[in-house]
């Protein structure tokens, strides 16, 4: 995997992203130079505690930042194009076709007065052209399921432009594809689910429906912002298993945001640890657990109660998460770091590659 990474270009690259929020109390310096790379077809987990900026990063990527946010510097390159320079309309198209995001609480993201079928169809009907092609292909005798629909995305075909397809047929195709997708996310009895309202479904089912809505867009990138945090442990296990299965079928690059290192251990290829608006360490999952280099990562690992290796006391990190209006100078972790040196207060460490595939932002590691 690491050898390939040297040659493959990342599908998403965030370079030195700095972002502030205007608030009544002052400027909240939420992101302080985030560097991140997401390679095609991999699962990268962003792990951090509250206030570290992981959700803000997700919002910045998808262009869903609130009004009072402003970018100071940096770029977010998706397939080479800077997302920050795109207009609102372009970002909307981006969210429609290239990038899908699923959030934490499905109940608040589904419209309670619309049936599930209305909401799911709404998403897939955005791709009218592709649906048209699918109907035509079906009429020619090909069997069109979701996987075929996915493959059609990459085929550029202008022959069908003048061919008229009735709205009814498009609708039917959309419905068929939706049922296919629901089966793919292992929702039992998809027809009944389509006719239900969101409050009639359980949390796990709603989350699967949200994942279905995300997949319906055939995205190249999938962002999951704490999607299992609100779920019970057995349901969380099911969703993680589902994501692993889907990975094999639908090769999207996934950015999984979570505060739970164990969840990241389950599903991620690489893990990026964030603290105080920076990425402080990035490595493969195994490396993060076996050879963590950043002091924060090391302390974080020792703060998790581990059933396999129980201890009497958990190691807690002294101090509190930095307050972002007046963050500590230099490295934002320095007030709490047991190894803090003088240089840590004056100079912010850059994220550098220390070993192959292992990047750390710490003065200790150079």
């Amino acid at each position, binding site marked *: 995997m690491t050898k390939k990474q040297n040659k493959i270009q990342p599908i998403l690259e965030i370079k030195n992203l700095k972002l502030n929020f205007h608030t*009544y109390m002052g400027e909240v310096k939420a992101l302080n130079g985030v560097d991140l790379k997401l390679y095609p077809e991999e699962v990268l987990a962003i792990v951090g505690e509250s206030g570290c900026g992981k959700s803000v990063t997700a919002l910045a990527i998808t262009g869903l930042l609130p009004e009072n946010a402003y970018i100071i510097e940096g770029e977010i390159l998706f397939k080479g194009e800077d997302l920050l320079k795109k207009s609102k309309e372009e970002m909307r198209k981006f969210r429609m076709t290239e990038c899908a995001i699923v959030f934490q609480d499905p109940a608040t993201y589904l419209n309670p007065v619309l049936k599930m079928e209305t909401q799911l169809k709404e998403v897939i009907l955005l791709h009218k052209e592709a649906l048209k092609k699918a109907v035509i292909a079906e009429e020619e005798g090909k069997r069109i399921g979701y996987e075929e629909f996915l493959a059609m995305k990459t085929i550029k075909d202008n022959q069908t432009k003048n061919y008229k397809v009735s709205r009814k047929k498009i609708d039917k195709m959309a419905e068929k594809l939706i049922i296919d997708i629901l089966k793919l996310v292992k929702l039992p009895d998809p027809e009944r689910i389509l006719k239900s309202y969101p409050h009639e479904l359980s949390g796990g089912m709603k989350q699967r429906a949200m994942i279905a809505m995300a997949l319906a867009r055939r995205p190249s990138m999938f962002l999951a912002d704490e999607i299992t945090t609100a779920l019970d442990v057995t349901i969380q296990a099911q969703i993680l298993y589902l994501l692993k299965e889907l990975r094999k079928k639908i090769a999207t690059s996934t950015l999984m945001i979570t505060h739970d290192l164990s969840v990241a251990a389950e599903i991620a290829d690489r893990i990026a640890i964030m603290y105080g608006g920076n990425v402080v360490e990035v490595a493969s999952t195994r490396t993060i657990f076996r050879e963590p280099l950043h002091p924060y990562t090391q302390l974080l690992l020792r703060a998790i109660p581990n059933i396999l290796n129980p201890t009497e006391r958990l190691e807690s990190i002294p*101090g*509190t998460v930095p*307050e972002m209006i*007046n963050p500590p100078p230099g490295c934002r972790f320095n007030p709490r770091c047991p190894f803090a040196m003088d240089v840590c207060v004056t100079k912010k460490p850059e994220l550098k590659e220390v070993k192959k595939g292992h990047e750390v932002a710490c003065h200790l590691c150079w």
Partner: protein
Amino acid sequence: MSQQVKARKGEWEARLADIKYSLYLLRKNPLVIAGTVIAAFFIILALLANVIVDPKLAYPEGYPGGMYPFERKYVWNANHFLQWGPGVALYKGPEFFPLGTDSYGRDLLKMIILAIPVDLYFATIITITAAALGTFIGAVAGYAGGIVDEIVLRITDVFFAFPALVLALVFASILGRSLETLALAIVLVWWPPYTRLMRGQVLSEKEKPYVEALKALGASNLRILFRHIIPNAIFPILVQATMDFGGVILTFSALMFLGFSPSPAIPELGNLAADGYGHIFDAPWVILFPGLTMLIISLAFNLVGDGLRDVLDPRLRR
């Protein structure tokens, strides 16, 4: 938070800091500032009114006595910028009335200045009484629930079935014709909205975890209701009361206008306006300026209330 440690000496200092924060937020809103300035202007005017203008001017010679102590004589305005229709006779006297006079020859501007404290005073009393009464009943109903709640709800339903003004008229005609009884009539009409509002607030506060925590601690229901729930739920009531201020002035004036005033000489905005009712086209200033004053006062308090609502919205604050 730990980086901004600045020890506070006591409870009051903490509360003061809280109030300072509210004022800070208020300052940011231009509408609130405008409203506050205007409202403050009127309040100061009200306080100084009896000093600026001699109150005896309201009751020209011949008055204490009957209901209609003086003759009606219309005096036209000497201000030649205001020319009204045909049949105008200019007063050729020495005085200049900036806003004209009313049908009794009193200077309208002076009358309005005298009227403002009357209106503001009664509006304050009515609003505070209605709000206090409604809040108390609503809080108890919301917290107790069950049959108490049902009874209170049905009573408020009855009150809501009638238009406020009509009901106030009914009460006023029962209670009699003095300013105080009019105020009472309006209070009787104005308390149900506060009850409903407070009840709703209490119902939602009741379910919050801190109430449960207090119960677990062993706090009595009385303590929970009066020391915890009501202070937390009171903000919408304050906002509503501020915004209602204007409405109360209008209602009070309306009642005076409609003929419930004990005497036509009393300086009160509605009373003054009633005077000019029959002469809207030939002497429009009599009804116009008192009305305009009511409008401006209403608007000012409305703006203050609106701004308060934005500031006190808990989602924006904490």
